[in-house]
């Protein structure tokens, strides 16, 4: 596989405040890359730069090996699906989808029959067959999302950029659209770059997952690799499934005022600053005093629980520091009742922890 999109050293600052700091990224042809970043991580800026709506202060963008820095947005052949869909409100669904074919600078279609054939095929493809005559105000949010996608897909772009495409949809629709997006990607083989602030969406959608932090790529790997072995404590924080303790390492043990936890094999023996991460679902809740050798354990007060169907999350307050979350998958556990304000022992195998120094 060859890279269809190559970003090299992209930097961009707004009023002196850097949004992107020398970001480099390579996207393989036909891949589905999801990009996870918090708001302000520069992910929207990056998409706008790739699409050509903004110029980077430094760096180069290559599409199919050719630099597109001097090429206008309308001649780059890159599709952009907007978060708010940006459908043309004065046109029908059909006319929205036909817009690119009719009005593009390069290779505009004149033959009405050809336009009709391609637009209708695309509407069928996204599951909107027969809705071409509807006005934009007459269709639902999920249908708008499909129109936005069809409008971009019909112009045969080399890459499709999706800017938080599911952000405006409700939970039920999100999951259906996630399946649909994967199907469309499989069917067309176009390269997708899907930006999101939702870690579950990012993990579910991409063949590859990019984590964007502070204007640069913090990790690029397969989703399960990112999930199980985040490249840094900051990446772990984005994934929103790790308890993270900040402290130091002395004699192979992680220490923070009163806390002393064994480190996994391979961790440094000594560090002045370290982050100790343990996943929510790796922790077992036990009675005080039942600590096992080779296991890490802390005592904490039970605060509250949150039930969300397949899992239940318990919140514990250690003597100092922020809350510790424990997640039980209900297919393996029965929901348990814990007494509020009573102390419990939270323990986990030392090898399940991740330590970054």
């Amino acid at each position, binding site marked *: 596989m060859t890279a269809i999109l190559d970003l090299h050293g992209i930097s961009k600052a707004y009023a002196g405040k850097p949004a992107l700091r020398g970001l480099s990224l390579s996207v393989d042809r036909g891949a589905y890359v999801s990009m996870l970043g918090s708001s302000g991580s520069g992910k929207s800026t990056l998409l706008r730069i790739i699409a*050509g*709506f903004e110029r980077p202060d430094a760096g180069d963008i290559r599409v199919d090996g050719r630099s597109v820095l001097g090429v206008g947005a*309308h001649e780059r052949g890159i599709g*952009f699906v*907007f978060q*708010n869909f*940006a459908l*043309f409100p004065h046109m029908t669904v059909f006319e929205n989808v036909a*817009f*690119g074919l009719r009005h593009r600078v390069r290779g505009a279609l004149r033959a009405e029959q050809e336009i009709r054939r391609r637009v209708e095929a695309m509407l069928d493809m996204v599951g909107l067959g027969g809705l071409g005559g509807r006005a934009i105000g007459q269709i639902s949010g999920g249908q708008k999302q499909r129109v936005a996608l069809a409008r971009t897909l019909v112009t045969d772009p080399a890459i499709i950029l999706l800017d938080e495409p599911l952000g405006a949809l409700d939970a039920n629709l999100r999951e259906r659209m996630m399946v649909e997006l994967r199907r469309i990607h499989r069917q067309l083989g176009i390269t997708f770059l899907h930006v999101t602030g939702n870690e579950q969406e990012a993990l579910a959608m991409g063949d590859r997952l990019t984590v964007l932090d502070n204007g640069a790529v913090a990790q690029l790997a397969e989703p399960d690799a990112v999930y199980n072995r985040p490249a840094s404590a900051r990446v772990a924080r984005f994934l929103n499934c790790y308890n993270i303790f900040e402290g130091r390492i002395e004699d192979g043990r992680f220490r923070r005022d009163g806390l002393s936890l064994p480190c996994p094999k391979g961790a440094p023996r000594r560090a002045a600053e370290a982050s100790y991460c343990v996943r929510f679902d790796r922790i077992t809740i036990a009675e005080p005093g039942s600590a096992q050798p080779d296991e890490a354990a802390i005592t904490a007060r039970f605060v509250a629980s949150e039930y969300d169907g397949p899992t239940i999350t318990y919140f514990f307050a250690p003597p100092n520091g922020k809350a510790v979350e424990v997640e039980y998958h209900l297919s393996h556990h029965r929901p348990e009742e814990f007494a509020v304000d009573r102390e419990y022992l939270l323990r986990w195998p030392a090898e399940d922890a991740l330590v970054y120094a």
Partner: protein
Amino acid sequence: MNSLGNANTGSIDERGPMSELGAARGAPRATTPFAAALLAVPGILWMVLFLLGPLLMIVYVSFWTQKTFTIESTLTLKSWIFFFSSQTYLSALLTTLRIWLIVLVATFVVGYPVALYIGLFIRNKTIQTIVLVICVVPFWTSFLIRVLAWRPMLGTEGAVNLLLMKLGVISAPIDVLLFTEFSVIIGMTQIYVVFMVGPIAFMLSRIDHSLIEAARDLGAGTWRIFRTIIFPLSLPGVVTGAIFVSVMVLGEFATSAELSGRKVNMLGNIIVTQVGSLKWAFAAVAGVILTVLMGLVIAGLLRVVNLRKEL
């Protein structure tokens, strides 16, 4: 009363002289249609007394018999026949139509680019407001002064002629600049253009910039984007502005009198002259024709775009 004693009231006992009170108390939020209609009463009363009444009166008076200095309520078609057989009045009607069309086009041609700049290219809402306020600064002086100020500009010894002669573009002053239909059109365009700029700038400022970016991303060039996205979306503003300008220009008499040396007569000028010489019936005929004309123009403009849907 019957309309209030509806099924919702429930028991028969409540239907009586007191049911009105009961209904008003019982439904503090879901106001009855009757109570809501009360809100419109002052407005309706005002419009009937001071607009609809006089309007009907004008139509009525236009059929009265005009004597030299008096008017009698004997109904006749004479004033109407006189209007449509008089070269003066018919040419005033044509002049009105011609000036209206030219000024409408001129305010659009001058105003649209300005509105485009204010509404689309000034991103900062505060600056947008400031610029729009600057546009209405001329309105801080009186209407007549704004009209008369064109005389020292356009006269044979006016600023424009002096400048052109100093620059050597012309050797003798151009005398068609002032006291012609041209000066009337210049004056009206300047006075009314802001009524075109405002509504268009407002509509343009509401266009989501991502629509323009989406169109560009789909491959359209700047002119295409303007033609297919920006202009259609600003059309309600154009129609609103056109209605403002049309209503004001069609009823004009001051600018046409002052800047043409009373040579250009619009329907408004006819009305002023006729009222001045106590020819009420003729003035009424001209008034009815002017009102019908405005009604037709507004109805025509509203057909271009469905304002209720767009605003």
